[in-house]
């Protein structure tokens, strides 16, 4: 495996191997000495054409804990804002000798374009492309679910997870549906019909418009951000109505299963899809998702950047 562009690049056993590696790497994050020499001398570029806090910082922390050199590159303040194309940017990075490029881009398929073009030879990691996929987020969500709910089991067999909200614009939802179902979980997506994409019935997930009906039956609720920056038309009458039907508030939390958890990939619209008290409640693992993100991204970098030039599975 050279690139991580989509969850479809991973087999079930490869996904589990990344989660297992992350479990071992988590102890580095707990140790007083948070640094390993593993990727010393490798250069990793964070190419972020779209805004991000968590993902960029998380990948940067992960790369630094493995001793890689990190170059941060955002569209604002670079030649991209002067109209430089992705191709020219990629060739510049190639000329600088980047071993890996972590790309976040507003265009779906940008990571794939970068990986399959001959513009650069390094590893490409998709950190969110348009409304397509966000595989590292799905892996950290699966890691968080496994850690909290699976008591040492390797997969997510028997778990029921509801993904609620703006499914239409959500790359997090797409990657999570693919990964969680691959790991054996049942997934339900819940949204108003206007926020469900065309073809959702072909996904490996149940579709529901009734959040209240699902709440007592699920082991985890994953709330999605309402992506108003991608909404150029009206998807629901107003914010209050959206919150009433699809927001997570303390009344709904009271009807959740014992030991079930609340997740959110961030950033949150407090008061819209989730109320502030719920976001900060004991069931919420939202902050922990962020720290798990560092371990999982270390595992991704370790898996992709070691054994360079060797076909996976080959014996030496």
């Amino acid at each position, binding site marked *: 495996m050279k690139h991580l562009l989509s969850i479809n690049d991973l087999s079930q056993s490869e996904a589990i191997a990344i989660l297992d590696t992350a479990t071992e790497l988590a102890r580095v994050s707990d140790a007083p000495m948070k640094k*390993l*020499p*593993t990727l010393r001398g490798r250069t990793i570029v964070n190419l972020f054409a779209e805004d991000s806090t968590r993902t960029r910082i998380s990948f940067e922390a992960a790369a630094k804990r493995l001793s890689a050199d990190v170059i941060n590159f955002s569209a604002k303040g670079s030649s991209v804002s002067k109209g430089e194309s992705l191709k020219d940017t990629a060739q510049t990075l190639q000329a600088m000798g980047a071993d890996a490029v972590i790309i976040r881009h507003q265009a779906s398929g940008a990571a794939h374009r970068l990986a399959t073009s001959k513009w650069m030879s390094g590893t490409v990691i998709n950190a969110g492309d348009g409304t397509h996929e966000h595989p590292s987020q799905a892996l950290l969500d699966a890691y968080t679910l496994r850690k909290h709910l699976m008591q040492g089991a390797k997969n997510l067999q028997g778990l029921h997870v509801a993904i609620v909200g703006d499914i239409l614009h959500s790359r997090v939802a797409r990657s999570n549906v693919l990964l969680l179902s691959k790991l054996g979980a049942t997934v339900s997506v819940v949204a108003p019909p206007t926020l469900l994409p065309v073809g959702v019935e072909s996904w490996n997930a149940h579709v529901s418009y009734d959040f209240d009906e699902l709440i007592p039956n699920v082991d985890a609720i994953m709330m999605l951000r309402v992506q108003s920056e991608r909404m150029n038309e009206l998807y629901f009458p107003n914010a209050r109505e959206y919150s009433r039907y699809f927001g997570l508030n303390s009344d709904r939390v009271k009807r959740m299963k014992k030991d079930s958890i609340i997740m959110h990939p961030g950033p949150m619209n407090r008061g819209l899809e989730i109320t502030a008290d719920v976001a900060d409640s004991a069931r919420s693992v939202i902050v922990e998702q962020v720290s798990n993100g560092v371990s999982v991204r270390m595992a991704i970098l370790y898996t992709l950047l*070691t054994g360079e030039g060797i076909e996976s599975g080959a*014996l030496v």
Partner: protein
Amino acid sequence: MSVALPPADIARALTRISHEILERNGGSSNLVLLGIPTRGAHLAQRIGSIIQGIESRAVPVGTLDITLHRDDLRLRPPRALMPTKIPPAGIEGKDVVLIDDVFFSGRTIRAALDALGEIGRPRTVQLAVLVDRGHRELPIRADYVGKNLPTSLDQSVRVHLTEIDGVDEVLIGSTGSL
């Protein structure tokens, strides 16, 4: 492949190593045994219980995964990480005995010394191995050796242990016969 060490020889070697460790360190009071996964970890458990049988007190046994410190990560496919379990009392000021199955280039032990340095500062670090097959690439030597096994570079040495492989044996053969 032919058998270089049958089960009885492995048991005798481990017993002798345990006695040598105790003799050299004047007892087990300051000892910590750290096995290098996978098979080194099981050997450490066995040596730990032999020492416990002799001294009538438990000696701390842990594991130390060195994968992330290897210098050949670029040259080999990604390896699965194994657990590192350091005994609760730590290794600060202790006499640490690293335990591995086959001693070859010395690069694993070099990585283990780096990994140890991040955990603490032991008083001494010693090395016990079941088989020393020679061909060192670094100036590193073992303090306790179960069996010196002269080999050529194109031969391979395999250690099988009951805990993993169902049988105790050390095999030697040419690479082609694997």
